[in-house]
């Protein structure tokens, strides 16, 4: 590339320049992105004391460089270091203009964004989510390891859910109200125009927002900040997509005051890493900025990233053993095409207009208006006959072997062979479904979509003023309004004529999904089953003061606001005729917080930093309504979530070495978790219910309320520059994330409203969804010839399964006659044995990353490649207990089988995967 050329030129000049000047090396450093002079770059002659910094115009000049072969090193934090071998012989070497690049390893974020978009959680209990994307722009050794090395096993920094991290665009918070998490797919595939990022770690001060405990990533999309030029890249991978094409162009700020950035991208896979998982995504981005004058500028940003992909199923160990770790129960052959029944589609175009006002040298006011509208759909089967899931428990070998002495070995053998031979029966049998529908005009099987159409309008203003050289004041106001339309949409009747909108598990009026339109015949495209809107609004005021002194930096921040939700039912559900239709009561949650932090600079090398904060956050929509599809019910005693968090760090910085050690302690309280499942063994004897409600098996909506969690631990990260070309990193994370109390569990069904089932004895159970310990050792070699390679080895451990709360209530210890368990010869220990929390095996991962680039004419060409999990380890990233067998009798009977029918379900991580990226910059 260009640097290579410069060396050649350097050598050339070095050899021919007349030796009139005395042993000087000079040059000018420009920022490769902006073409502006780069100041403060440290320039030194290796193995000597000769050094200097670039001045305001980017120039440098080193005098008295000894004769001979020397290496000139140019270094600046956040940029790629550059090394120029020169030969000095009583002359002056002019290295000319040197373009200084932001750290090349930025290409790494491609793999991180990919992980963040995976969003495996969906609606399954205990699914993982990923925080790696939030940390990607951090420069901290520890956090880079977490993002790039640990991300593939769903490692969560400090065990925090991604809903405790905030993602903003130009200071506008983007987390969704439904689950408070950032919806990464809304900006997936826009990597090259999202390079301008600000990251605030944990409680640390952010200029635009109060933030949250995990931290804040702010993408800045002002077109004027992007260097003139373009980039085209192609990536090949075997992850959830096969290939990516991306092209972008920026004009930079032009003489007429306009600046434009555009990007288009495409990511695709007919079949991704998991069987039957397709990937189909487009990305489009445009930012137009008009700088009116020194004081005023307007920036318009719009992006749209329609994305449709086939999901993959969590499976029991029995299924993985039969079908392999890439087995996916969601697809089947339709003709000669693989068709996935569970597609996720996200189409949420976003538009933002920002006004940047430099009121004076010291004061700015940035006002944004954001509009986002679109749809998220998750498809699945509906059926009135047998479950089409090929891994439905009645279709697995274990089902035929469950009765000791009466095993049906023949059927088990046939079922086993279906999987071993990849027979069509081991997948969804689409043709059978069409055949069944051909016999009945009223659909027996159909494919429908759970649709969530959100429209958000938000306005915020961010104020920033520097009172004097020591004090800065920030403040912001945010108002956000979301209208969330939720319904089931008939996607494909699979050859049937219509579907009658009835609950086939209920009878009479109770079976009607909408009493206002009974027995309605639904055709493709129609809404049916459930239909409601939630209006949500959020107001937030934020103020912050930052103080900077020689020895001490400190900040204080506070916010205050409120979030309100109101459901409007559009269907009058037959089972909830009284409280399903019309507007429900408005739910209002106060939100507020205070935080502060202090950094004490013992010396330039030693720093101490302490942060503390208390905050109240609104619960997400998902955890506010106990069964929002059918009624207005609110989770019992719902209130704002409370978080208390403290952390303390020691930092060491010295030439060639930097290290950080942090301890943290966070408690979450008043959390709620809403879930839905079918359970057998529910003792309703103590419930106040009409006589006709009998039995012990129900489809339940369950809300766990008043949960407290405690996350504490220590983080260590160090980077040592062993030689100019070799650096080593070491990272360790020791966490302990537990439930900290025994919350209350309420259950409801279409036969009874939410009823207190009892205390769930969860205290000291481990939180799930992340390894709680992680260790990483990395080696990096950066060749003066402008290629680099790094390798790291990682050990991740203490990852636990997501537990089922209903198994930890008194209901579990009660038999179907209401008698307590244990009894007779069964000891408490033997009973409790069934409730021990599964701990996953430790994971050992080795990753390789490298890259190189060249200059050809005026273009730069490069590539970046990574191999993750080089050793091909098969490992579980997460899983959950099934709640179906809800009491001891039921659970122990199932668990005592050689192969339980309702064992834990798991997700497996990827074995060896690669990512190669080629790019051309011009």
């Amino acid at each position: 590339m260009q640097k290579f050329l410069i060396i050649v030129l350097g050598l050339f000049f070095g050899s021919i320049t007349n030796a009139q000047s005395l042993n000087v090396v000079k040059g000018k450093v420009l920022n490769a992105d902006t073409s502006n002079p780069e100041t403060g770059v440290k320039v030194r002659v290796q193995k000597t004391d000769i050094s200097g910094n670039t001045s305001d115009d980017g120039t440098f000049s080193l005098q008295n460089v000894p004769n001979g072969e020397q290496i000139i090193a140019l270094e600046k934090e956040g940029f790629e270091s550059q090394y120029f071998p020169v030969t000095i012989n009583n002359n002056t070497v002019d290295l000319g203009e040197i373009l200084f690049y932001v750290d090349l390893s930025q290409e790494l974020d491609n793999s991180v964004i990919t992980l963040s978009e995976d969003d495996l959680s969906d609606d399954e209990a205990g699914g993982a989510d990923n925080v790696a994307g939030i940390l990607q722009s951090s420069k901290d050794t520890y956090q880079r390891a977490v993002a790039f090395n640990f991300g593939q096993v769903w490692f969560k920094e400090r065990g925090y859910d991604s809903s405790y991290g905030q993602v903003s665009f130009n200071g506008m918070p983007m987390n969704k109200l439904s689950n408070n998490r950032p919806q990464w797919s809304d900006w997936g595939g826009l990597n090259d125009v999202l390079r301008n990022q600000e990251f605030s770690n944990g409680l640390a001060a952010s200029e635009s927002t109060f933030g949250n405990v995990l931290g804040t990533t702010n993408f800045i999309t002002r077109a004027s900040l992007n260097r003139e030029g373009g980039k085209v890249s192609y990536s090949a991978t075997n992850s959830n997509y096969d290939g990516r094409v991306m092209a972008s162009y920026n004009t930079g700020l032009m003489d007429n005051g306009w600046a434009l950035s555009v990007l288009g991208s495409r990511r695709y896979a007919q079949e991704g890493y998991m069987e039957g998982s397709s990937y189909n995504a487009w990305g489009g981005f445009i930012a137009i900025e008009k700088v009116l004058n020194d004081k005023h500028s307007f920036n318009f940003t719009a992006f749209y990233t329609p994305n449709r992909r086939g999901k993959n199923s969590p499976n029991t160990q029995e299924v993985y053993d039969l079908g392999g770790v890439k087995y996916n129960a969601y697809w089947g052959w339709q003709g000669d095409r693989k068709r996935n029944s569970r597609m996720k589609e996200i189409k949420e175009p976003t538009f933002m207009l920002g006004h940047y006002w430099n009121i004076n040298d010291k004061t700015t006011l940035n006002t944004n208006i954001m509009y986002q509208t679109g749809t998220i759909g998750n498809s699945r089967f509906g059926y009135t006959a047998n479950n089409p899931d090929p891994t439905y428990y009645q279709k697995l070998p274990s089902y035929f072997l469950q009765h000791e002495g009466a095993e049906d070995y023949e059927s088990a053998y046939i079922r086993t062979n279906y999987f071993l031979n990849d027979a069509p029966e081991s997948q969804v049998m689409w043709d059978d479904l069409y055949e069944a529908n051909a016999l009945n005009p009223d659909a027996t099987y159909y494919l429908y979509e759970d649709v969530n159409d959100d429209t958000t309008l938000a306005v915020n203003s961010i104020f920033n003023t520097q009172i004097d050289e020591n004090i800065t004041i920030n403040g912001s106001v945010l108002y956000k309004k979301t209208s969330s339309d939720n319904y089931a949409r008939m996607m494909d009747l699979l050859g049937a004529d219509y579907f009658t909108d009835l609950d086939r598990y209920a009878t009479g009026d109770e079976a009607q999904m909408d009493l206002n339109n009974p027995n309605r015949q639904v055709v493709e495209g129609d809404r049916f089953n459930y239909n409601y809107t939630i209006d949500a609004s959020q107001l937030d005021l934020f103020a912050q003061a930052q103080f900077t002194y020689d020895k001490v930096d400190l900040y204080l921040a506070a916010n205050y606001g409120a979030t309100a939700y109101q459901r409007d039912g559009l269907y009058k559900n037959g089972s909830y005729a009284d409280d399903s239709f019309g507007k429900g009561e408005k739910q209002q949650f106060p939100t507020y917080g205070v935080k502060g932090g202090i950094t004490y600079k013992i010396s330039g090398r030693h720093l101490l930093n302490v942060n503390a904060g208390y905050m109240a956050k609104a619960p997400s929509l998902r955890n506010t309504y106990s069964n929002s599809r059918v009624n207005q019910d609110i989770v019992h005693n719902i209130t704002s979530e409370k978080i208390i968090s403290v952390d303390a760090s020691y930092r060491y910085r010295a030439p060639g070495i930097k290290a950080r050690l942090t301890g943290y302690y966070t408690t979450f309280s008043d959390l709620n978790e809403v879930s839905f499942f079918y359970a057998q063994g529910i003792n309703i004897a103590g419930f106040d219910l009409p006589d006709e409600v009998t039995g012990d098996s129900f489809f339940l909506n369950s809300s766990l309320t008043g949960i407290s969690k405690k996350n504490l631990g220590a983080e260590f990260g160090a980077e040592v520059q062993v030689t100019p070309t070799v650096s080593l990193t070491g990272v360790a994370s020791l966490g302990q994330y537990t439930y900290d109390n025994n919350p209350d569990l309420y259950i409801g069904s279409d036969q009874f409203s939410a009823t207190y089932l009892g205390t769930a004895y969860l205290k000291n159970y481990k939180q799930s969804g992340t390894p709680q310990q992680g260790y990483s050792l990395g080696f990096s070699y950066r060749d003066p010839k402008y290629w680099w390679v790094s390798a790291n080895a990682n050990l991740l451990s203490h990852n636990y399964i997501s537990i089922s709360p209903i198994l930890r209530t008194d209901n579990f210890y009660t038999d179907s006659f209401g008698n307590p368990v244990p009894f007779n010869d069964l000891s408490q220990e033997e009973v409790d044995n069934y409730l021990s929390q599964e701990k996953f095996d430790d994971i050992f991962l080795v990753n390789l990353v490298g890259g190189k680039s060249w200059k050809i004419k005026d273009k730069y060409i490069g590539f970046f490649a990574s191999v993750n999990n080089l050793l091909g380890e098969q490992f579980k990233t997460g899983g959950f207990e099934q709640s179906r067998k809800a009491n001891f009798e039921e659970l122990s009977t199932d668990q005592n089988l050689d192969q339980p029918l309702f064992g834990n379900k798991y997700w497996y991580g990827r074995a060896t995967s690669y990512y190669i990226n080629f790019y051309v910059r011009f």
Partner: protein
Amino acid sequence: MSVLLVALTLTSCVEDTDYATPQINCEEPTLTGQEVSMETILNQWIAENDTDGDNIVEYNETENPIEFDSDYDNYIVGYVVSDDKTGNFYKELYLQNDPVNPTKSIKLAVDFRSLYTKYDLGRKVYVYLHDLALNKNRGEMVLGEMINNQVDDMRENRAKENILRNCDAVAVTPVTIASPSEVDDTYLGMLVEFDNMQFDLSLIDITNPENSSTFVDPYDNYDSHRMITSCDDNSQIRLETSTFASFKDDTLPQGQGSVKGVLARDYGDNFYVLRVSSPDDFSFTGDRCDPVLLDCNNPNPIGGSNVVFDEDFESYANYTTALPGWTNTNVNGGNNLFQVRSYSGAHYMQCSAYNSGEAPLEVWLVTPAINLDSSTDEELTFETKTGYNNGAALSVFVSTDFTGDVSTAEWMMVDAEIANGPSSGYQSSFTSSGSVDISCLDGDVYVAFKYLGGDGGVTTTFQVDNVKVTGN
């Protein structure tokens, strides 16, 4: 570069939508071996078990299965007459040998549900017999798989291999049976139809039809039985509905008309039942044929100190059937009549079809003439009690033109409370009829207690006591 981009974009096409609806091209199954008739294999089973050589397998003879070897390559042909879409049929498929004029039927027992998605109503199927076994089970001839030495549900894989579908589903014409009294084993397992039927009045609320009984009694755990009565001859058959049927909570159709369903036996093999696929199998659109109810609508209080008639049966000996002045008659000419019985010293009249050998059993017990000319505001009261109740069998009428032949008199039913006790044992006490207003009648009045049941059908024991008319 742009060429490269275009090329990449073109190759990046992902086909993840627009799946063509598969052509459901039915291919006729390739048949090997020979067809054997249902009759052949049913006779084979009879031959196996008929020890006394009368071509009938009586209950005291063996019921051994006949098994078909795994290399037996012949098949039977049948037409599906049961539809499990509503869940009223469960893991079973009734087949008959002809869609219009069936002579034989066999039930297939299979170990999976939602058979309607493959073997829909009227579907012609070929059932290969290899690896299957045939036996009588709970009164019905069942073809299944031999598991643990008995004919059990054939497993899904076995069923898929052995039951082949023809491409055609034909219309099945139900076999019309004149009335439940005509039912016998020749119709068992076939789609049959009865005309001029209605649900028993005790199940129907005439004035508020929505308050009528539902297909399934909420207190039943497995199947519910609801009595359907013929308007032609008053004979009855039970409708059997599963507690898992989707229409279990629907109210019974209140009118009169035709009903079609599969004729089957109840779980205990005690009586015939009719099993429908859905409420659509009823076409009860006509008016009911209930007897006329006496409705005097007297605004004054009725009853008084003037005892016009009072019979407590205490003066008669046990087993007496001929009571002076009373008429006690079996309309079909049988021997069973109301009899005097006693319990704890108290005497009453009793009738039961249990072990009567008569089906139907219809017995009328009529009072002597009760003259109402010298009284006003008359009230009729009586008491009833049931034993081993398996259905309503007693109804009470009045007439003013009775001359000794119950068939020629004009009878009006009275609106009285009739005992309805448990299915096992006797009620502990009698049920009062409540006050029955007969004040609008004059001259000689006759009160009739009609017992209608049948051996093998409704056999409830009914007891009647303290028949009394008072007035002013």
